[in-house]
């Protein structure tokens, strides 16, 4: 019996519909979810299954048609835009598939933007940004423009930005969608280190590699959850067989 207080993200009967009458599309259809602190949860599904919409609902970027959303102990589905914005400053960090960095700002300026918009003083924001860039391994590229960074590096900058305000949960929407496998590995490593540091992560993806890093994997189809798997467990000692080595 999970302690409700521990749940960083909670959703009850979440529904999101577009259109009316005959043409109604149910992007999210009755989703219940709980993510406890420190967990990494992956939501997997084919494109169009509604996972991105679900993420937007959980992060307060969109309002549900029905149901409740609780974030860091606060109910957010009925909040006004202003309160939602304030909540986004403190409780949530977003990572997007397209990175969404400002092209004309350097890496450090991109990272500190979050803190500046939340009202930190420039010096504090700058210092934190540099620390975070160090943490993601890009300390020496702080003054680079995004155009001078590889895809994996850009996403790492975006992750650093998401961590800027010490969010309760990091919501990642297809974080490796635009990355090749080498860059994916970079991001994977980063997620693992975040997980080890106790950061709560909710990742939406159709990449099984990313999904495999999670503690829990939820499959989604047509707006609803269809399956849940616990992936934690020891090694099976059977890798050799996968490689073609007879034991």
């Amino acid at each position: 019996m999970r302690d409700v207080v521990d749940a960083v993200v909670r959703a009850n009967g979440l529904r999101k519909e577009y259109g009316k009458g005959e043409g109604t599309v149910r992007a999210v259809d009755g989703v219940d979810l709980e993510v406890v602190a420190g967990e990494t949860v992956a939501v997997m599904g084919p494109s169009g299954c509604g996972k991105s919409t679900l993420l937007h609902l959980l992060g307060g970027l969109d309002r549900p048609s029905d149901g409740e959303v609780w974030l860091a102990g606060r109910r957010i589905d009925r909040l006004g835009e202003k309160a939602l914005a304030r909540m986004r400053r403190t409780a949530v960090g977003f990572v997007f598939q397209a990175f969404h960095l400002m092209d004309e700002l350097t890496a450090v300026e991109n990272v500190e933007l979050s803190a500046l918009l939340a009202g930190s003083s420039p010096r504090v924001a700058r210092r934190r940004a540099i620390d975070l860039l160090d943490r993601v391994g890009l300390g020496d590229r702080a003054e680079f423009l995004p155009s001078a960074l590889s895809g994996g590096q850009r996403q790492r900058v975006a992750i650093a930005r998401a961590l800027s305000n010490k969010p309760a949960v990091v919501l990642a929407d297809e974080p490796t969608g635009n990355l090749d496998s080498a860059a994916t590995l970079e991001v994977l490593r980063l997620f693992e280190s975040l997980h080890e540091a106790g950061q709560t992560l909710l990742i939406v993806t159709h990449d099984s590699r990313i999904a495999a890093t999670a503690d829990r994997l939820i499959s989604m189809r047509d707006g609803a959850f269809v399956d849940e798997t616990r992936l934690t467990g020891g090694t099976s000692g059977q890798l050799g067989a996968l490689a073609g080595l007879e034991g």
Partner: protein
Amino acid sequence: MGRALLVFRLASRDLRRRPVEAALLLVVILAATATLTIGLVLRQAAADPYQDTREATAGPDVVASINPPLSGGQPADRGELRAMADASGVIAHSGPYPVVGAKLAVNGHTVDVEAEGRDTATVQVDQPKIVDGSWVRDGGVVVEAALADALGVSAGDQVSLAGHSFRVVGVAVTAASVPFPEASLYIPPDVPRGSRKLPPPPEDLGLVWLTEPDVRSVAGQTDSLSYVMNLKLADPSAASSFVAAYAPADPPPGAQPSEPPVGTIATWQQIRDNASLLVRNEQRALVTGGWLLGLLAVASIAVLVGGRMADQTRRVGLLKAVGGTPGLVAAVLLAEYVVVAVVAAGVGLVVGWLAAPLLTDPSAGLIGSTGTPPLSLATVGIVTAVAVGVAVLATFVPAVRAARTSTVLALADAARLPRRTAWLIAISARLPAPLLLALRVAGRRPRRMILSIASVAVAVSGIVAALAANAELGASNFATSPELDTMRTQRLGHVLVLICVMLIVLAAVNAIVSTWASVLDARYASALARALGLTPQQVSSGLAMAQVLPALVGAILGLPAGLALIAAADPDSTTYPPLWQLLAVVPVTVVAVAALTTIPARIGARRSVAEILQSEHA
């Protein structure tokens, strides 16, 4: 030939795809061309009617008058005038005719007039042309046409002249005097004997004709009569040199003559210039206004075009990929805007030509002024050239740039990358969130920011110049009869108001368009800002500030620019607008721009964040 057709087809199809923008473009250029047309037509209108009047009335080349000496007791010396008539170069003359100053009263108005005594015979020089009724006879008065128009009298009305009752027998025009309210000869009314100075000339002075006996009876004493004579020269263009021999040194303008002039003498060119003075000020205001509007139009179009050029990039890429040369591509882009400009020029010419008489009937006192002269080739040429020039100027740089971009980049729709202004970014980091957003949004497109500043500066400078002109009007306004609005001030006032309104409207359109373009462009940045935690209110005020701040800079720059404009347009004018008006312009402009930009900014701040982030990229 095929290529030209292709260019035309592509251009027209694109215009049809975006009717709103094409319409906006049209309106903007139209404002400039219509104003310019009115100004140019007026310039024409001023010149012709006087010429027509001169020919129709056998107008004189020189008009001279002589007053009785101020010391009194003696009549005016007609001999001097007669001597002038015998001078070399004079081929004909009429007069000397007696003239007396008097007050004309009718319909509750009282006006100072000069009453000239004529006989019924037709003369060779200065035979006023009757436009209503008939020529002088005893007991009757013929009123100059502009005066009749202002007073609302026509043939058959009763008027009181110097206390005597007269019947208006006719209305006539003449080229020997400037139409009401500015007759060129100043015949002082009864001056008390022994006074050393003349009373100042009345602001509004009219002209009427009586028979010679009637003039003498109105004058009372013969030695208070003045005399006027009209001369025709062998060489009309030499009138000024003829006059130079006789005219005393002119007193400095505006100063009271220390000694009353013995008489006055004027050339036909001076009369013509004064006759068209009314029109000239308006014409000057309109032409200046037209140029200012043209500048504003350039700024507006540049913003419109610049905003859409990003869209065009893809089309350009397609054109080039299927084999279009950069020249063709640039031609298609320019063709669209040039077509709109030509249409705007055409419509502007028609609108301006129709509107000119409404604005300023130059004078009822000149022949041929009831209709407007047809558009001269020069006017059509100038206006079209300005319109096309404005369009080309505004679209040249983007068109060339679009034509030069690599095809691959264009096809991949690599949108124009925002510029990085490091110092702006550094400063904005210290400011509260909305200002941070505002500075960064503005700094992404420095060219648009400069255009915004420029357009507000142009509008403000125009308004400042208009305020100065208004101040000048107010300072010189001491009409003798306040109910009788002097045509000069009234009409010029209307023109100034019209110009100001158009400047403001155009600048407002510019502000809204610029905000809209800016909001669209910043849609991505504002969505991201909201995802990072900015409230919609903060975002909308930031987007509005991104327009207001350049407007503030522009308004401040516009003040000295406007003063410079005044100095350039009218070098001898020393009237400046009152300080409070100048100081008020800046905050009023800022508030106005803020009001205009709030709505697009708010709309832009409310769009769905998720949607924008899904579809947009940088």
